[in-house]
């Protein structure tokens, strides 16, 4: 392919630089831990060394990710297949959906059906669909009172109402290029390919991308790198998925979930039978019950059909209930015998009746299950119809507010493949104010950490080692905030207190650190050649308070909720949202001023230390300033979002 030689050359240069970076970095770290820790100030030296180690780990993971990137060219289209377009909406305005729906109807593919998935169930949306002639899908009454699972639930619902072989998923604001299907459907010639992801591109970015929304680094080198390890992610929109893969995933997860529920229910039953009301139990019945539960657990462990497991438990419970009820009836018969002997003829008749029907004790008269220690709720769990859900089978993962990543990871774990196609084929809207932009980032971060906690990629069976590493790399990046906090505060501490985390001659330190940092930088520039990644870099440091908040709130706080990103600019100024960044900038500048004053007028400290920390502090300030400016950003006079060319060209 054209330019292929250049691509390969670039990868080769990258690898050389990467190896050199890892060697110099490794040597630097060894020296830091082994020879230069300031043991007189460990409270400062240890966090600093830990943060540096964390940064090095990130570099190692980055190198791995970029080691063998894949740049794909789509195979010729797979003619004749049917494609459903799902446009998901909840509360976006009609005019916005009109753009998307009309563009979707114009997609060049003969066997195409467009469906608007309106989770808001709005009459005006239904009217729009009737007017332009596309399908309209809302949730049915089976969802009433059940968990709705936000966007994932919306898509799952539509999957059950449609039958196209492939599904193109579009967010409400993502205007598709008419070529989108024809360009990438050919990838599905590989029968094991589950989805193709294309980039997210924004047509409303104000000049300079003040909110750092544009993600050319992610939807370019990073996704190509992950794709090289067969780990291209699904990002929720602008992707085509294979229905068969989703359905298989849904079924597998259904069985797995049932298995988990059964295990949990059996555990609950076993403990309850032993612990609840032991004195009320008729011992032989309790033993029978324990044995039944043990054989059910054994059957579950051996992989017997779940129905069989459920039957074993039900039979055991029934047998225990019968046995203890019979025990009661026999006791009653004994008492009635005494009454009969004392002259009560009716007692004698009843006794005869009871003894004659010992095997047919009326259900209503049988022992209370609760008194056997059997929790009816646990028995309900042994039900294969998943009573708590609107749909028993949920293809799109519902464990997290970022359903896309969890779904992709599960598909990969089942052995499905994925592809990243780097050409922009859909045009969407980016947040137009800082609050919305930050909320979106927070949601992604919380969702990703949620996935890590619920389905750790290192524990999930079925993934290849590189896939595990790729998922982990992305998850780990949301923990950067703690190291960043150390990095932004360290120069302030150094300048203000004169204490350094490092104990070493200045030149020695510089000679070890500079090559590592320089190589790292050059390596990064090689990877991002032709891409403006500077804003992304600034934001990844500047968002440290948000990353920390995401981790803390997810690990220790409430469950994050799916928040629909508003598509219109919310007015206002948002300086309050960036107070930590403003504080750090102010502290840094003050500390530089103080350090200079202390050196010049009182002779405290050294020029080397002042210059190093001032340089470092100013670097931090440069990284943090854009987000503060974004808080008071106003688009320039006369600036307007420009919808993509092909839309304007149409009559």
């Amino acid at each position, binding site marked *: 392919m054209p330019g292929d030689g250049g691509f390969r050359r670039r990868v080769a240069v990258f690898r050389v630089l990467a190896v050199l970076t890892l060697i110099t970095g490794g040597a630097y770290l060894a020296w830091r831990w082994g020879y230069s820790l300031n043991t007189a100030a460990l409270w400062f030296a240890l966090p600093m060394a830990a943060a540096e180690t964390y940064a090095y780990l990130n570099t190692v993971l980055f190198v791995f990710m970029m080691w063998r990137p894949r740049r794909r060219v789509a195979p010729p289209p797979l003619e004749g297949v049917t494609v459903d377009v799902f446009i998901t909406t909840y509360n976006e305005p009609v005019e916005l959906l009109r753009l998307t729906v009309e563009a979707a109807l114009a997609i060049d593919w003969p066997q195409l059906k467009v469906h608007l998935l309106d989770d808001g169930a709005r009459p005006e949306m239904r009217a729009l669909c009737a007017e332009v002639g596309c399908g309209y899908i809302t949730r049915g009454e089976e969802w009433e009172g059940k968990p709705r699972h936000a966007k994932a639930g919306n898509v799952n619902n539509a999957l059950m109402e449609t039958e196209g072989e492939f599904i193109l998923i579009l967010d409400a604001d993502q205007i598709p290029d008419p070529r989108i299907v024809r360009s990438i459907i050919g990838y599905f010639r590989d029968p094991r390919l589950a989805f193709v992801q294309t980039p997210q591109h924004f047509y409303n970015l104000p000049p300079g991308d003040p909110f750092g929304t544009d993600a050319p680094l992610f939807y370019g080198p990073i996704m190509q790198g992950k794709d090289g390890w067969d780990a291209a992610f699904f990002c929720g929109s602008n992707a085509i998925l294979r229905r068969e893969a989703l359905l298989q995933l849904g079924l597998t997860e259904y069985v797995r979930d049932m298995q988990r529920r059964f295990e949990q229910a059996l555990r609950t039953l076993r403990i309850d039978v032993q612990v609840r009301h032991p004195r009320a139990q008729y011992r032989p019945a309790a033993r029978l019950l324990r044995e039944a539960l043990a054989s059910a657990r054994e059957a579950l462990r051996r992989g017997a059909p779940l129905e069989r497991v459920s039957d074993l438990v039900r039979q055991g419970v029934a047998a225990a209930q019968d046995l203890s009820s019979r025990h*009661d009836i026999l*006791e*009653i018969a004994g008492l009635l015998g005494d009454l009969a002997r004392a002259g009560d003829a009716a007692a004698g008749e009843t006794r005869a009746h*009871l003894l004659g029907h010992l095997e047919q004790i009326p259900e209503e008269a049988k022992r*209370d299950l609760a008194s056997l220690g059997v929790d009816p709720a646990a028995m309900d769990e042994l039900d294969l119809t998943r009573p708590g859900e609107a749909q028993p089978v949920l293809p799109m993962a519902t464990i997290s507010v970022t359903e896309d990543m969890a779904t992709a990871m599960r598909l990969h774990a089942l052995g499905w493949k994925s592809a990243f196609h780097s050409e922009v084929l859909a045009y969407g809207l980016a947040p137009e104010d800082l609050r919305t932009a930050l909320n979106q980032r927070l949601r992604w971060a919380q969702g990703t950490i949620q996935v890590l906690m619920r389905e750790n990629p290192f524990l999930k069976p079925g993934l290849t080692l590189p896939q595990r590493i790729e998922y982990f790399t992305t998850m780990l990046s949301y923990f950067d905030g703690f190291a960043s906090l150390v990095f932004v505060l360290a120069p302030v501490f150094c300048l203000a207190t004169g204490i350094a985390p490092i104990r070493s001659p200045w030149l020695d330190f510089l000679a070890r650190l500079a090559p590592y940092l320089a190589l790292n930088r050059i390596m990064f520039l090689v990877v991002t050649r032709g891409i403006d990644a500077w804003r992304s870099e600034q934001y990844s440091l500047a968002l440290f308070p948000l990353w920390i908040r995401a981790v803390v709130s997810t690990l220790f706080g409430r469950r994050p909720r799916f928040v629909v990103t508003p598509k219109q600019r919310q007015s206002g100024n948002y300086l309050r949202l960036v107070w930590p960044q403003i504080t750090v900038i102010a502290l840094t500048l003050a500390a530089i001023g103080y350090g200079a004053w202390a050196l010049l007028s009182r002779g405290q400290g050294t020029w080397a230390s002042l210059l190093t920390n001032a340089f470092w502090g100013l670097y931090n300030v440069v990284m943090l300033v854009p987000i503060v400016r974004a808080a008071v950003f106003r688009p320039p006079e006369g600036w307007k979002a420009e919808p993509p060319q092909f839309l304007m060209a149409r009559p």
Partner: protein
Amino acid sequence: MDLGMAVDQRSERRVVLSVTGRINAVTAPAVKARIRELVEEGHWEIVCDLGGVGFLDSAGLSALVSGLKATRERGGFLKLVGVSDQVARIFRLTMLDRVFEIHPSVDAALA
């Protein structure tokens, strides 16, 4: 377990024992013991009000029959009132409705 019992003494021998809650294997021993206690205290003419009993199983039946026997041994009685449809059905199915006197009200039982 939610079980309540209250005794209302009507005369030297006569009491009304009102039971509320579920009578099953967990609570039946308490019912049985209370009736025996009453009999031992000399109250062997007992009207047992099951108005507050929503559930009764074989273990509960056993406790009541045992109480019946205890009262009879002293020449007394154990009559039932306030029996819900559900509980009445259990007595019918086990034919114990022919052993126990079941009355619509305490007054009817003591008439």
